[in-house]
């Protein structure tokens, strides 16, 4: 029983510390100069390891250190403060 509990704890710990890839589709993101604000805002977050902006697909790809480091509400707030709208958020 003790071993089972330990295994479950270990599994949960591994799951919570694995990196997470978040893909955000952003409406209105047509100008690279203006979209610099999105990159700047996400780069300022310590748990964000990598941020990529793709104007062709209107996607912002964010890699975080740990799963659940960046909640959907936080992402929506950052995108909105940068002047854009979030169309969808996907996590892997």
């Amino acid at each position: 029983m003790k071993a089972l509990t330990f295994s479950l704890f270990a599994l949960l710990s591994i799951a919570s510390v694995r990196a997470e890839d978040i893909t955000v589709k952003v409406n209105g993101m047509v100008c690279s100069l203006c979209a610099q604000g999105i990159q700047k805002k996400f780069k300022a977050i310590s748990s964000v390891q990598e941020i990529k902006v793709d104007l062709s697909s209107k996607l912002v790809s964010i890699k975080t250190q740990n799963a659940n480091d960046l909640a959907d509400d936080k992402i929506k707030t950052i995108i909105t403060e940068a002047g854009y709208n979030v169309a969808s958020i996907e996590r892997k």
Partner: protein
Amino acid sequence: MRAVGIYLFIFFMTASNLVLAHPVIYGGGKVVSSFNMPSYSDNQLMYSMTSKWASGLNHWRFTKEGRNTELGLARLNHLLYRYNGEDSQANFYLLSGVGIVDAELETKGTREAYMGGFETDWESRTLFVALKHYQFTSPSLFDLGMTQARVGFSPSETPFDQLQTWFMLQAMYMPETDRTVMLTPLLRFFYHNVLWEVGSSTRGEWMANLMVHF
């Protein structure tokens, strides 16, 4: 003393060559911009408190037949409406300013001045149209309107972190300085957070503009 203050302000703005163009950017963002032609210049240093409001400093110079009128303004801009489409964006901004004018275009004098205006644009990754109007006034001393329209296109959809090139045509009308519409074909480039433009008008006036977001 008042005149010294005005000249110090104007000197600072001119010497630092700061001017601004995007009326409001992302919250916490700063913009310096400088828009220059022989007949006028517009220099701005702006700070966006939010993605809807920005304030800052603005210096204008208008030149006609060797005479200059200069304004130093404290500015407040508001993004009244933004449309974020899947492949395009449209904006409508309200522009305002209050400060001091040192006029010599028609009547000579120095006193308080006000500016009101609007700017609207629509852009996709390869097309751009914009219209803006400024109205400057100083009671019984100075009145000047400026209307600018632009259309532009980019020959390719350049990736986010590469040099972007746009071909544009600007039409400008300032009836108090010239009754004709001045057309200026120009090239716009931007790379990362820096935008610059160069052009030459149908009157032979050069244009050189610079804007930096940070």
